[in-house]
């Protein structure tokens, strides 16, 4: 199973770790819901940026959220396949979970998936 990475703050990583991706999540001061869950293949490529850099950026935006962190999760191929989208090809390392595109399957399977929070 491929390992997917999600760069964020530690506080958010802990929440996602515990309950799974929350499409209803709204950033403090933000205006829109997360809607989806953005990840990338651990082995890259990282055409949209490296998750570590992204985590650091989030930490700079939200310094009170316990620092940067990367959430790593082992996701079955069939769930990743459900997220497949020509705009986000796996060949570019991007795995974007949206409603109707793998997000529901990911959330449903979340508690059974091997996962960890990596410090940055």
């Amino acid at each position: 199973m491929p390992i997917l990475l999600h760069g964020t703050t530690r506080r958010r990583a802990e929440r996602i770790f515990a309950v799974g991706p929350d499409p209803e999540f709204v950033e403090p001061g933000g205006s829109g819901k997360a809607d989806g869950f953005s990840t990338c293949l651990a082995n890259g490529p990282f055409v949209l940026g490296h998750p570590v850099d992204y985590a650091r950026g989030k930490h700079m935006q939200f310094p009170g959220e316990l620092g940067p962190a990367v959430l790593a999760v082992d996701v079955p191929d069939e769930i990743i396949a459900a997220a497949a989208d020509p705009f986000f090809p796996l060949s570019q390392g991007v795995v974007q979970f949206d409603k109707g595109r793998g997000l529901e399957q990911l959330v449903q399977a979340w508690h059974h998936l091997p996962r960890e929070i990596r410090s940055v």
Partner: protein
Amino acid sequence: MMLQKIHNKLADILADAATARINVVQFVDQLFELFRIDGLCLRLDSDYGVVYAEHDKNLILIQPNPLTKSQFRAVLARVACLSSEVDGITRNPYGGEWSVATNEKQITISMANTLDTLFVAFQVAGRRISNQAIQRDSISLAHVHQRVSEIESDLFAEIAQTSSTPGEIVPAFLSAMAGIKSVFEEMVPNSAPQMLMLAGSTRNELPACFSSLRGFDELFNSAILADEIQQHTRALERVPFVVHPSSQDSEVKEWLKSQQVGLVITMPIWISISRRLERAGFLTLVLGRELPERLHADLEAILHRVGLLFQFTIQIAQVAVRVEDPTNKR
């Protein structure tokens, strides 16, 4: 001719993205190719559901924006990633304000207020927007807000003294808009100030207003601000037209319903200074229960003349203003 060319090319790229013929990397690459047109500034606006480009003081609008929120965020991330590759500075695509000149051709990519507005702009051969410049613009904008308020107050006063036909309101309205424009010209003389008019009260409410008349209540919610409309009650009582800044308030909504107003047209004013979009205020027209037969013709005249006034295509004005007739909903 150039406008049509830009429009067609932009529409093709967006259509390719919407129909999954290209991926995010190809999409951004194709956008960059488009930006090699001198003086072009393009904005992809996820929250507002629009894509528009400015060239030679003309505005091209493509609506709706076919990109999903995830696609749009990926575009932001890709642009941030490319920019970081250019100068080695890591950027967060969803926060802060920054810009970068990507190469000797001076393709400038700026992402302003991305946390709030999910806004990205590209321009070619334009001046680089430094943080200092942005700060200066912000200071100017505070004055702009004040001046716009003053002009609106003058407009209220003028409307209150006129009679009630739409044709008599139009000159006052246009005069106010011209005054607003002159404010920007005075304050930021070298920035080619432009004004956009989009429907809705706050940024969050814009999508609802853009998506083909979701309903009168929704429009009301986005249209009226209690203290400001109270302040101008006299004008409301005397004429079927008022123009006022707007926001939302349930009491005012009820009050307006009790007045059985006929139409509400909300026109928030968005300004673009130094390629940065800011809200300057709102103009909302509340029309009385007795609707003139030639109302729509007058509205079209307003839109057309305002469009000409600010050198925008009529297209932007047509999509920018939503008109609802509450009598049809009851």
